[in-house]
């Protein structure tokens, strides 16, 4: 974090934030993640790849593989729910940012933080129902997944997706993920995609751009 802030820049950003709060960005095409909760072995190669890509020390975790287990011995079950930032349709983080550092990209709907504007106040961290914004104490900034925009702009996919040994994590236009049109091995031939699974907040809050293949015990009626 720089010690001095460009006041004009902050002013412009705050103005932009205000505008986006009342007239949210409608992306030309919204990219989102898809994750198979059942077939994921929970290895966390995606998490480590993300750490390495974003140069993070222990502490902030952009991508989090949640381990869920239940039942009573010996009738037990377990599955994984893997989330980073969901690049929501209505990102709860965006309006909370006092400096307007958070923005949503028009082309692909990716939500990103301009760290030259971030003051590390952590309001977005509190606002996000999915725990996406992560505070990095090494430079007092809040950071989060930006779907590796540099990789996307280079015509590739994010590091986490390309790290998945089981090929159960992917990205695509989110409407196609939800409709099942997206051709991806993350979704098996007999799998259905759900927008909401157990162990995640209500999707009505922010309309996250993510789809899951839910475990039978993780389905929401």
């Amino acid at each position, binding site marked *: 974090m720089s010690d001095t802030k460009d006041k004009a820049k902050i002013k412009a950003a705050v103005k*932009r934030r205000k*505008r986006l709060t009342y007239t949210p960005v409608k992306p*030309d095409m919204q990219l989102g993640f898809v994750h198979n909760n*059942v*077939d994921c*072995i*929970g*290895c*966390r*190669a995606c*998490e*480590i*790849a993300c750490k*390495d*890509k974003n*140069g993070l*020390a*222990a*502490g902030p975790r952009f991508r989090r593989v949640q381990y869920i*287990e*239940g*039942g*009573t*011995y*010996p009738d*037990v*079950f*377990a599955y994984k729910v893997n989330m980073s930032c969901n690049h929501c349709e209505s990102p709860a983080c965006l309006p909370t940012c006092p400096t307007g*550092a958070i*923005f949503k*990209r*028009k*082309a*692909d709907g990716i939500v990103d933080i*301009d*760290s*030259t*504007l971030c003051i590390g106040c952590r309001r977005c961290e509190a606002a996000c129902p999915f725990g996406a914004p992560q505070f990095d104490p090494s430079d007092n900034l809040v950071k989060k997944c930006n779907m590796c*925009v*540099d*990789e*996307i*702009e*280079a*015509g*590739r*996919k994010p*590091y986490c997706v*390309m*790290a*998945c*040994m*089981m*090929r159960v994590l992917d990205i*695509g*236009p989110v409407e*196609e993920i939800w409709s099942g049109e*997206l051709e991806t091995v993350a979704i*098996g*031939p007999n799998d259905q995609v759900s927008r909401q699974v157990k162990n995640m907040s209500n999707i009505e809050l922010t309309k996250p751009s993510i789809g899951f293949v839910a475990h039978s015990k993780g389905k929401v009626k």
Partner: protein
Amino acid sequence: MSIEKSLDDLYERLNLSRRSFLKSTAAGGAAVAAGGLVELQTAKEAKAFAYEPYPKDDELETVVTSCAHNCGSRHMLVAHKWKDVIVRLSTDDGRYQKDGHFGKDSNEEPQLRACLRGRSYRQRLYSAERLLYPMVRVGERGEGKFKRISWEQALDFVAKKMVQIKDVYGPTALVDQSYAGASYGVLHKSDQIEGLLGRFLGMFGCRTSSWSVPSYQGTTFSSRMTFGTIEDGNEDDAFAHSKLMIMWGWNPAYTFHGGNTFMYMRMAKQRGCKFVLVDPQYTDSAAAYDAWWIPIRPNTDAAMMAGMAHYIFNNNLQDQDFINKFCQGMDGGTMPAWAKGKENFKDYILGTYDGVPKTPEWAADICGVPAKDIIKLADMFARTKPAALKASWAPGRNAYGEQYNRMAAALQAMTGNIGVLGGCAEGVGKAWHAEAVAYPYDQYSNIWFQSIKSDRWAHCVLNYPNVKREEIGLWPREDNTDGQIPNIKGIFWQGSDWFNQLTNINKEIEAIKKLELVVCMDSTITPSGLYADILLPIATHFERHDVALPWYKGHYYIHRPKVIEPMGESKTDLQVFTELAYRIGGDVFGQAFNPKANRDYFHVNDNVDEAYLKEWWETKVMPHQHVDMTWDEFKKHGVYKFKLDQPHVAFRDQIENGASFQTPSGKIEILATQLAQITDWKRTMYGYEIPYIPKWIEPWESLNSPKTSKFPFHLISPHPRWRTHSIFNNCSWLRETYEQEVTMNAADARKLGIKTGDTVEIWNDRGKVVVPVYVTERCMPGVAVLHEGVWIDLDENGVDRAGNPDMLTLDEPSPAGAFAYNTVLCDIRKTDLEHRPGWDQLATSRAHVFRRDL
């Protein structure tokens, strides 16, 4: 690349047609037209990483390399570097192979994506624990006080001491404990039997080798006896063809055996394959493959298998044609003429000899699995074709673990699931054969003067000379030194943290005090290193030239160039041994050890390494494996993936074309010819009798033993996912994904008043450790799970505050050599003793002690 062009690429990859892309762009255009001002304002946002400078991959230099450590697989790492610094690592994305492109991931040539351990390699490479300079011990062994010295001083010290020890104590005084560690390549190879260290000490004329492999000696023995080879594995793509897969103590979600095993198993699931897990834990593998979990008491696997065999024989479900054609000693009809009067397997199972039929009910009492489940599984296995019984290594790391693996082979054979696609004969499971050796491989490669069971060195040192040969599993020799107990006075560790990894660490601590020379060659400090006299800093695989080969499954080679210059003063293993050879034996030893090099090799090694590798590629890989890619082309691509005509299945040739098995009889030896003919067991390396047919033998510790009155829990120590044995224990990214904790069943915990997060002590007669506890329904009652490999951290009373299970294991190997890592009874209680949560917390202070010039 322009954003528009790149988005175009992305659209193609996301399977959007060009037309739909144009359509959406047009829609975007309309939006621009409607709100031009908005677009102008948001134009700024296109800036990717606001926290620049951020070097993007395409602005960095890309070097294909691989991971290199002692796990069951080997994957590609792609280094993105800026000058001499690796900025980040990625992995195979399909681009690098011949005719590759981004996203190429066919079943024929799947991507070799690295696991979490490989991805964390930068933290190991640049860790505070890296050894950068040679150091000499200034405190007591284990105290961790060292002082920096020059290579000249270090090598001089080692060379003089080696000669002195050999002169005084003879040719068995030095033990090599070298394992694959972080040095598994075709050139810079550390290996227990035939690596660079073994060759060096053998040529020097002073070497006691260690013959039993900690991970899978029971399994190796079984595969050798039954099939005559350890290459009893199928390639990973064969797993996609099973209709039933029994994962016996196998957790590929943790161990990642083979390049893409876990992925092909998913394919099998999608094709309708049913999965079963026989294991004390409901593992992540069970969850991902939706397996039927059969919890089993540790160390009782052979009994359950005997129960299954009984059901199969009793209901005549065996594949009798297969047995008659391919097996020896399965039943009365397949007994060889010379074995009249010997026992056959079927009659053993039916109880003909001992009057005890090994029925499912008999087995149920021993293994804790209800008889109806044993019957159900046996029935499924006998009737489903093809079915894979994947008998993994872990249940073989037991007292009499070899019996479990031999019993599994009998089940695989009696159901005719060997040599067929979708079946399985594993076992060790080594499949495709790689050309593994680029270093000089000649008559000197494996010279030893005595060879012992690997975890008996401490016993041998402490009791010398009052040691019986069978106690240490002395390998027979043809000359007059046969049976001489080695007088061990020194240890060499090369890329190996064996002190931390062998059994009964407290006994090792006693023994190491008696040694006169302990040399540790490694890239980082290790718990073993703390007990060394000399620490030699070794270059990692990023800092030297080599080629990676698959370890266990997979058919490819990955080029491993020198990505960065060696850090600090680190040198390669080969440089160190070569220089020591020159110092000890002048040009004669030096040039015999490393024929392509001269004395300058210690300072300049690039050309010599290149020459070895090029020769290996051109004289071995190209002619033997029909590879037409030149060495230079291979270096350019960085990877060569073989395309196989059909999935490699072990013993296909034997079953389909009638070729002989590599056993004495040419058959699958349920009755092992070699074992049946041994009369004096003491004169064998085994030391104690091993039945020539698979049998259930009661282990010395289990939940069925009377010792449970004192120690009611059975401790197992599986391989973790977040370390490779002890490697990566110091990586904070990985530390973040787990805690070194003991897993126990919820009902057991309730009885002891323990809940998740409590600190407990686990102890038995051998030692004590302190760890946090994780309480779960996913673990069998009576069983405690503590993953191996954590770096020991002892307090003043010898209590391990880090939680290494080998403080509790017994250094009593199974007759066939299997380490009894999983044959441990213990007790658990809540404690106030100090637990130290992480090496990483200590790392800074410890590194400070190591680095400072005292």
